[in-house]
């Protein structure tokens, strides 16, 4: 597939802090690319450099093989992590105002239908719920019928229903052939929506690929999970790779051979009544690569 947007060796410093340190990647047309990373990893700075909101100290951004200039804004749809609209503006007025900024627009009726805004079209935008507000901001991001859509943590703070609703919307947009760059803290979201992800830390991309490929590359085991109370004695004395989660009162056992592990458990008179088996997830990969220490 053709690369629509290419970032090459982007660097951005804020004082002594290097927020983005030589990041390069390309967005293929019609795909959803996810940028994952802990707080302060540099995701938002990268997305803002691509949007033209923040200037890179060095590096190059090409759109359709040409330097991304002012015209790129006509082709880009942007949904910030936190956006405010002017006060006393209804949903309809917000869409009309943003629509008038662009030479080419998506019909408002179509957006209202796509983003399910019909019920509160004439409501003051300040009186929308979190999910309704995010749908409006997504509609605003789509008002110029963009080729590239930037979604910076679009579901942060939403309840599960609203989050799944927004996922469905993003899938619909991707199905229309639009190219999406998504940042998120939710690994499930990235797994669900992204064709390709890059995990960042300390301003650098530390791994990149499709979610399934990355999981296959990094893990070849599954996790067996048991309630702590089902294991008599000290779980760490078992002849298995055991991790004890004191707070959750669970025990996790990594296994490449489930049958052998289960036999070992039975040999040690451990009940399998509460046994759960799960594959390794993106969250496991994320924590394995970025660590479990708290970030800013």
């Amino acid at each position, binding site marked *: 597939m053709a690369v629509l947007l290419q970032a090459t060796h982007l660097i951005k410093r804020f004082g002594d802090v290097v927020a983005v340190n030589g990041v390069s990647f390309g967005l293929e047309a019609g795909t959803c690319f996810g940028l994952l990373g802990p707080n302060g990893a540099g995701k938002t700075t990268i997305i803002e450099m691509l949007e033209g909101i923040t200037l890179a100290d060095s590096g190059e951004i090409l759109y359709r093989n040409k330097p991304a200039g002012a015209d790129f804004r006509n082709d880009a749809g942007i949904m910030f992590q936190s956006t405010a609209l*002017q*006060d*006393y503006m209804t949903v309809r007025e917000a869409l009309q105002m943003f629509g008038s900024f662009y030479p080419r627009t998506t019909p408002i009726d179509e957006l209202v239908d796509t983003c399910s805004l019909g019920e509160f079209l004439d409501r003051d935008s300040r009186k929308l719920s979190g999910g309704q507000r995010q749908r409006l901001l997504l509609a605003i991001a789509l008002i110029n019928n963009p080729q590239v859509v930037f979604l910076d943590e679009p579901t942060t703070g939403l309840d599960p229903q609203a989050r799944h609703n927004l996922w469905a919307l993003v899938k619909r947009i991707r199905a229309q052939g639009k190219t999406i760059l998504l940042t998120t803290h939710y690994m499930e979201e990235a797994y669900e929506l992204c064709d390709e992800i890059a995990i960042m830390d300390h301003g650098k991309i530390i791994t990149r690929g499709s979610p399934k490929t990355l999981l296959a590359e990094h893990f070849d085991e599954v996790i067996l999970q048991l309630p702590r109370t089902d294991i008599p004695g000290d779980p760490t004395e078992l002849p298995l790779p055991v991790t004890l989660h004191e707070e959750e009162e669970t025990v996790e056992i990594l296994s490449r051979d489930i049958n052998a592990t289960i036999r070992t458990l039975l040999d040690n008179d451990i009940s399998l009544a509460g046994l759960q088996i799960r594959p390794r997830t993106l969250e496991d990969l994320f924590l394995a690569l970025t660590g479990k220490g708290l970030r800013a």
Partner: protein
Amino acid sequence: MNWHRFLAVLKARNREFIRDRAALGWNIIFPIFIVAGFAFAFSGKPMDLYKVGVYGTDSVQKLAEAEKTQPFFRTDYIRFIPVSELAPALTKVERHQLDMLFDLDQHYYWINRDSPKGYMLERILHGADTPADTANHSTGDFQRQTVSGREIRYVDWLIPGVLAMNMMFSALFGVGYVIVRYRKSGVLKRLQATPVTAFEFLTAQVVSRLWLILAITSGVYAGANLFIDFSMFGSYVLLLLVFTLGAISLISLGLLVAARIASEELAGGILNVLSWPMMFLSGVWFSLEGANPLIQQLALLFPLTHIIDASRAIMIDGAGLAGISTQLLVLTLMSGVFLLLGAALFRWK
């Protein structure tokens, strides 16, 4: 400049202001309260003191001689004020700022036909004659002259200042504070991500606030005039020109303050630091005549001083374009400098 984008931002800002009923109401009611309050406070009779101007070659010497020879000039409760120019003194008689005027060279005196005080003074002048004085022509050689005109009350003098002060608060806080709020809340960042340019955005803010200020000032002017019936001797077109230029200069100053700040507290502090000295040193409440020359010079740095001076000149003195050309020039220069600096320093984030 893309007019579609400019008009969209302008419309959004106008809508926001008009729908914010608390802010709109405050902008209208506040100046009416002030004007009504002062009209009430100053509607009582002033101190019973007659003011008589005395003109003549070496008027001080002439007045001293007159005091010796003519009893009228020794009357208690009359303040005799030597004046060096006849025409401005006559204007003051017309406006009841002087109750009587003597020309000791030509032996004329003037009173205002419409002034009760002038009438009383004339009676005192003649009543003060003694038979001996009359024989010596101590008063009889003054020939009576009259003028006519309306009294200039304190409230007449105050109105231009109050209107300009209201413009100042509306411009500084209505633009400066709002832009800082936009920046802090992320409205500006969202607009930056669109093709809207800083010039289009800032121009829309200026135009939006300008017409609102002019509309509200006109409304307050008309409304206050209904109750107070204040003086307006000059041209309404010129007054509109002064208010327009004045509003642009103040809005531009607000833009300059808000060019980079993202803290509403800091913006509020800076705007207060600018607005309070202007309110007290630009002559809203009292004239700076006789104040420390340094203060007078400092006041000239404020756009409000020039707005008030020009509008008073039009409303009270009936000044024409030539009479206010200096103030117009200064306001134009200030607007240009503030706008250019504000646009150059402006940051979306």
